[in-house]
């Protein structure tokens, strides 16, 4: 119980800091909108084409939004040595990982919750279904489990903005593939059982990388 309280304390801290400046949510949201609009120019307004490329557009957008927001996750911790302050606190390193991960998850979900209706509106597509919401939530969990780990790593390197996408993108390719497939099936009116294999891959990814990141995170922040 104590464990969860500490985790929530870290998440709470990140959340109020974000609420104060809206640095991540507002900038990533604007970025997301711009990408969606630009894709519209790139693929024209032909509804058949749009139906075909929509899943790809959606996930390219969310992937880059994820990279952008995760890049910021550990920046405040490096100012004024806060990460060391956190490490000196009487909690295990994993608490820091899970707390920060949950905060990033929350921010990403807020961004997606705003972006999805806009996407539906601009592309005239029924993306506000339960199926797509489940796909989005599961995939986003996958993004932030690995992303939080790599974000903590990237912030300790030179050129940290560059290193996160280089690490993050190849590793999350399996869930991007699965999310695109599942979204396509869902948009075409497929049943849950048709989504099952994609969703399974995403879920397996989430669980495995939650465990792996949990285990290796301490090594990333300790010297």
């Amino acid at each position: 119980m104590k464990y969860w309280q500490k985790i929530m304390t870290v998440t709470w801290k990140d959340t109020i800091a974000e609420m104060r400046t809206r640095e991540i949510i507002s900038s990533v949201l604007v970025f997301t909108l711009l990408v969606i609009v630009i894709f519209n120019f790139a693929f024209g307004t032909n509804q058949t084409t749009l139906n075909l490329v929509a899943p790809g557009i959606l996930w390219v957008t969310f992937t880059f939004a994820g990279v952008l927001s995760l890049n910021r996750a550990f920046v405040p911790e490096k100012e004024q040595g806060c990460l060391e302050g956190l490490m000196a606190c009487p909690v295990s390193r994993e608490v820091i990982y899970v707390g920060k991960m949950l905060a990033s998850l929350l921010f990403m979900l807020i961004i997606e919750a705003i972006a999805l209706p806009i996407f539906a509106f601009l592309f005239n597509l029924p993306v506000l279904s339960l199926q797509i919401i489940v796909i989005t939530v599961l995939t986003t969990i996958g993004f932030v489990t690995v992303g939080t780990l790599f974000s903590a790593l990237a912030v300790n390197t030179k050129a940290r903005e560059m290193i996160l996408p280089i690490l993050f993108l190849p590793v999350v390719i399996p869930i991007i593939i699965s999310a695109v497939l599942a979204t396509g099936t869902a948009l075409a009116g497929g049943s849950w059982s048709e989504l099952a294999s994609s969703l399974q891959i995403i879920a397996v990814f989430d669980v495995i990388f939650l465990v792996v990141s949990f285990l290796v995170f301490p090594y990333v922040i300790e010297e």
Partner: protein
Amino acid sequence: MEESGSASPSRAITVHGLTKSFGNHHALKGIDFEVSRGESVVIFGPNGAGKTTLIKILATIMNPSSGRILVDNLDLKDHAIKIRRSIGIVTHQTFLYGNLTARENLEFYARMYDVPDRQKRIRELVALVGMAHRLNDRVGTFSRGMQQRLSIARALLHRPSLMLLDEPETGLDQEANAMLWEALRSGETGTTPTIILTTHSLERGLEQCSRLLILVQGQITFEGSKQALKLDDLKRLYRHHTGVNA
């Protein structure tokens, strides 16, 4: 922290054969020392001697490469979380989030350290460091000196029995520095804490501590109590061991 005043005159810290390497660079090369409860020890040494590394290892922020450290007779490796509860740290970095208010910062750390009666304790401490009027302002808007004062409040929140002070005077003005020592001496934290201080200032170190160590290139080259030493002797001694004027 509660048992720090217990009857056994045991040691607060035992460091044995401590080494730390960063790749090919050996920051600490086998360090041994002991600190008794309530004692205050100052560590002198030129830049790059390993002072900050030593403090970080004692604070469990960094892992040693080898060696054994006992804090309150508990092995640091096995009881890190328990030991962290009794440690307070002040360094030239404040560990404060610029986007949070003073209250939120303190509240955050108070929760992390399970401080009982949080609000009361926070009020007490901001009053102590003279920051009560800025409690609801964002720390990012504070001057350097004010942030440092708040950082002292942060370090004392959980009434630590072991204070690690890594060059605290960097960024602390005279007044805040005096305030820090006053708080530590007055028993604000419950009992007089054990103190380990690193500093460049021989005067201040000698003034505040009962024992001193000189650390040069990752090794302790001198250890002694201050009784016999005057500032001039210390200066000579320091030059002798480090080859640098203090």
